[in-house]
């Protein structure tokens, strides 16, 4: 019979009766297994001694009362920066990016699902982003199923919360082994266009909007995002780690999310696209870039601020992805879609290293 494994021998140290009869016979006759056992038993004893601590007595009732009086915290284990009121520039960028996103995805036929299978860059300038109105200027947005991102203790729990397979990454030795996981079930939001609100916001900004096409006022976009999982390499703050104000930039982030699904109602595709592209904030260059997206129903547009990042098309996991190398050399990222899932890897590493991690995801 083959030699006993280290795991079997180690268990024998804790539970001497754990060996089967044949394992016992082999062990009794095998000098090599006995020698390995002696070595690992010595390690086990030394480590047990090194980790020994005096027993402590706890006052459970007092501890419970301290926990009960802990200040109320938000329901989510983590408050993402985008939800913080102080992150207005980020919120503005997000709103602008959402408009670009909406410009493209709503080019699908009325009521048809948007189910992207590939990604494509839509280059935008900072001026584009600044001149675009926030989505809130065109109507109202409300979550019907709120996003509930939460920090979880393990990949297993992340998989339970999200229902997704958590991609396993092989990372270089320079990346910290300190990992955290966040997960989010699917969230659904509904945006309802409001012609009066759009006109009022434009008038306040001294602009004149083209008239909304008939049927657009009151029509809705229903957007489903997630579920999603994120694996974060790096410290999320030395304290409780649940307060966004304590977050430090992670070294590497690996994420997976079901591709977003969008349905639209009440307005024809052509009318809507024409209207959105004729808005005062949309430059002819941006409009041309959006119109250049070949198949909007299956393409996820990635708005990239061209002053800050250089996008390149890359092959990752045998599909086309978009890689961004930060021109400052401070970081890189790649995003791709495979099998209905959007994957992303980003971090403060060179683009080659990011691509290697992306290609090695399992």
């Amino acid at each position, binding site marked *: 019979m083959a030699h006993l494994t280290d795991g079997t021998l180690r268990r024998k140290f804790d539970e001497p009766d754990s060996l089967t009869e044949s394992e016992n016979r082999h062990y009794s006759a095998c000098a090599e297994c006995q020698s390995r056992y002696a070595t690992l038993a010595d390690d086990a004893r030394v480590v047990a001694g090194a980790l020994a601590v005096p027993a402590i007595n706890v006052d459970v009732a007092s*501890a419970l009362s301290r926990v009960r009086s802990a200040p109320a915290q938000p329901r989510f284990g983590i408050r993402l920066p985008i939800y913080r009121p102080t992150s207005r520039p980020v919120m503005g960028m997000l709103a602008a990016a959402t408009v670009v996103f909406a410009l493209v995805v709503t080019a699908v036929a009325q009521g048809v699902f948007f189910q992207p299978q590939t990604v494509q860059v839509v280059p935008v300038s900072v001026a584009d982003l600044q001149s675009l109105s926030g989505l809130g200027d065109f109507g109202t947005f409300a979550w019907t199923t709120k996003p509930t991102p939460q920090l979880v203790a393990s990949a297993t729990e992340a998989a339970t919360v999200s229902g997704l397979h958590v991609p396993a990454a092989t990372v270089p030795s320079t990346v910290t082994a300190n990992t955290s996981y966040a997960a989010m079930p699917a969230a659904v939001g509904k945006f309802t266009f409001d012609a009066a609100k759009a006109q009022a916001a434009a008038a306040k900004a001294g602009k004149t909007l083209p008239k909304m096409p008939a049927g657009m006022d009151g029509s809705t976009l229903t957007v489903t995002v997630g579920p999603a999982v994120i694996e974060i390499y790096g410290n999320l703050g030395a304290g409780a780690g649940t307060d966004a104000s304590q977050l430090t930039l992670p070294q590497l982030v690996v994420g997976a999310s079901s591709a977003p699904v969008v349905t639209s109602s009440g307005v024809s595709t052509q009318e809507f696209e024409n209207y959105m592209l004729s808005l005062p904030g949309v430059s002819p260059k941006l409009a041309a870039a959006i119109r250049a997206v070949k198949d909007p129903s299956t393409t996820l547009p990635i708005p990239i601020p061209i002053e800050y990042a250089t996008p390149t098309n890359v092959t990752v996991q045998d599909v086309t992805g978009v890689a961004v190398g930060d021109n400052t050399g401070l970081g890189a990222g790649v995003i791709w879609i495979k099998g209905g899932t959007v994957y992303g890897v980003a971090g403060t590493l060179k683009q080659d290293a990011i691509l290697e991690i992306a290609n090695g995801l399992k």
Partner: protein
Amino acid sequence: MGANFEVASTAGRRNGAVTSNEESFEALFSAEYGRVTGIANRVLADPYEAEDVAQEVFVDFNRLHSATAPYAAAWLYRAAAHKALNRVRGRRRREKRELSQAADESSHTMDPQQMLEVNEDRRSVRQALARLAPKPATVLVLRASGLSYAEVAQALGVGIGQIGTLLRRAEAALRKEVIHGASN
């Protein structure tokens, strides 16, 4: 439909669901607080900070999960180990207290020769532990805290058959890390 659900949950809360949740949490707390604190203390070697960590773990758990969740204990054990390891990684201010405690107890809980072979300084052992990858560090802490192979496996989300191998590797790695740390 969303509105109906909201009404139903509000009614549930008013009719005693809160009491029931609080009772479940209290039962969980009473059953597991000692063990969770013990796990944190195993890493920190500081009873006061260990209680701090344990209470944070319960607050986090209560915010995110139901006390009746089948994975409650496993979640608490693992979170206690992780949070305590993170504290060791982030802080170095326990040196003096640890050194005095180590001197006080080594005479009756450890073989002096073995202790010499690893390191006489408990602080360096904890820092070596915190330098290990999360999984081996956690398996060592949980097993040293008296969890069975089955409980450690559940907390780590791995099969029970892997625990012996993980322990073996983690012990070898810790011993190496301590020696490496001491030689630097």
